């Protein structure tokens, strides 16, 4: 547990000092969403209809963009190898890094999402559900993404490869995240969608750090 907190604090401090990473993720998120009114036209009804989907897709992309650096820098300077040799269970260390990734990139997205909802003319009833769904969904994105980030360590053309590996696995979260928001806007109960997303998170929480650390182990071997 102490090791978990130490690694988490180290990652947060690194993110804070190297600065731009999490700001970049949010900036990408905002710019990607802002492109849509230019693409589909500024018609308020159309924008309101697609707002939830656009915000979710952009959140998926920006969460994925920052994933490449989750293990890469540590792999290059050798600290990942030290982590695997240290007495801390590697799964715990990986989980700490994932939590750090979510705190620096997932959480800012949730904060920025309502603002983008306003820009896209999203009905106000959907806002609390958008935040709730993102809060349940983005940790799963970080967890699943960590497996991909660990798998591409040491490969050629890592970034493009990562999107090919990870985006198909993101689809279920996207489906239920969007349908939860759309259900509330349409006046329905979104409990089933939230329960399913909670289920994804609970399944990913033990399984993904396990798979990711298996990938890290064979990368530093």
């Amino acid at each position, binding site marked *: 547990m102490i090791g978990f907190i130490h690694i988490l604090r180290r990652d947060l401090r690194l993110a804070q000092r190297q600065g731009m990473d999490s700001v970049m993720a949010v900036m990408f998120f905002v710019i990607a969403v802002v492109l849509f009114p230019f693409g589909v036209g500024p018609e308020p009804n159309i924008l309101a209809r697609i707002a939830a989907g656009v915000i979710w897709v952009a959140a998926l992309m920006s969460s994925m963009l920052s994933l490449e650096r989750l293990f890469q820098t540590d792999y290059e300077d050798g600290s990942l190898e030290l982590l695997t040799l240290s007495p801390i269970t590697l799964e715990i260390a990986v989980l700490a890094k994932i939590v750090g990734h979510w705190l620096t990139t997932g959480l800012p997205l949730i904060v920025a999402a309502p603002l983008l909802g306003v820009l896209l003319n999203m009905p106000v009833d959907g806002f609390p559900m958008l935040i709730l769904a993102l809060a349940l969904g983005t940790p799963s994105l970080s967890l699943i993404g960590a*497996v991909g980030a660990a*798998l*591409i360590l*040491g*490969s*050629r*053309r*890592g970034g493009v*490869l990562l999107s*090919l*590996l990870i*985006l*198909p*696995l993101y*689809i*279920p979260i996207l489906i239920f995240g969007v349908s939860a928001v759309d259900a509330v806007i349409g006046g329905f109960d979104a409990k089933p969608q939230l329960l399913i997303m909670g289920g994804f998170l609970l399944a990913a929480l033990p399984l993904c750090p396990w*798979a990711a650390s*298996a*990938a890290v182990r*064979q*990368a530093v071997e």
Partner: protein
Amino acid sequence: MLFHRFANPTRFLRLAAVLQPWMAGLTIVLGGAGLYLGLLSSPADYQQGESVRIMYVHVPAAWMAMFVYTGMAVSAAVGLIWKHPLAEVIAKSSAPIGACFTFLALFTGALWGKPMWGAWWVWDARLTSMLVLFFLYLGYMALNEAFDDPSRGIKASSILVLVGVVNVPIIKFSVDWWNTLHQPASVFKMGGPSIDPSMLWPLLLMAVAFNTYYVWVLLIRVRAEIIANRVRVLRLKQVHG
């Protein structure tokens, strides 16, 4: 143990050389019979007309797409746990075949969907999960090729296959869990198949033919892979003197 006995590449190569012509012959005979029964001698459907015949390719291809992926997952697990090099080679060699089956299922499905549903593609659960399966195959192959050291690529992609295996039950049960446009299962279900024998027979023949075809091509690919590995080792030996 039998399993360990044939995990030896040399012994496997000898067995593969014997099996390969048999598989080729079976594929041609069964596939020919299945195609004849399916395309010429079986009745047209009372609703779908002649386009029902697409099913004799579409359904076996879709079964194979899932079967090959499951087989890859099992071999990848065996390769990771017991470090059998042959299991890793089988997983690696299966991927392009499985991807082709998946593409064939999606393609023939589109051809069938246009006259039946009026659309090449609809976003229902069965179709979407098959598309995801196709991407998983592509991701596996891309990851396999992405490393300078081939053994690293095989290990990394084995983990990926095991992660992606969650998709297989989703495909199988998507037609039961969601209310899809794609029809539910009519062959493997409780209470026996609900499809007429005159259509079931060509379908089953084609399914077996697709299976033997898979084994046939797999044997060729595995033999080529083992030989390529040997060539690589010999070259390295030459370089190191």
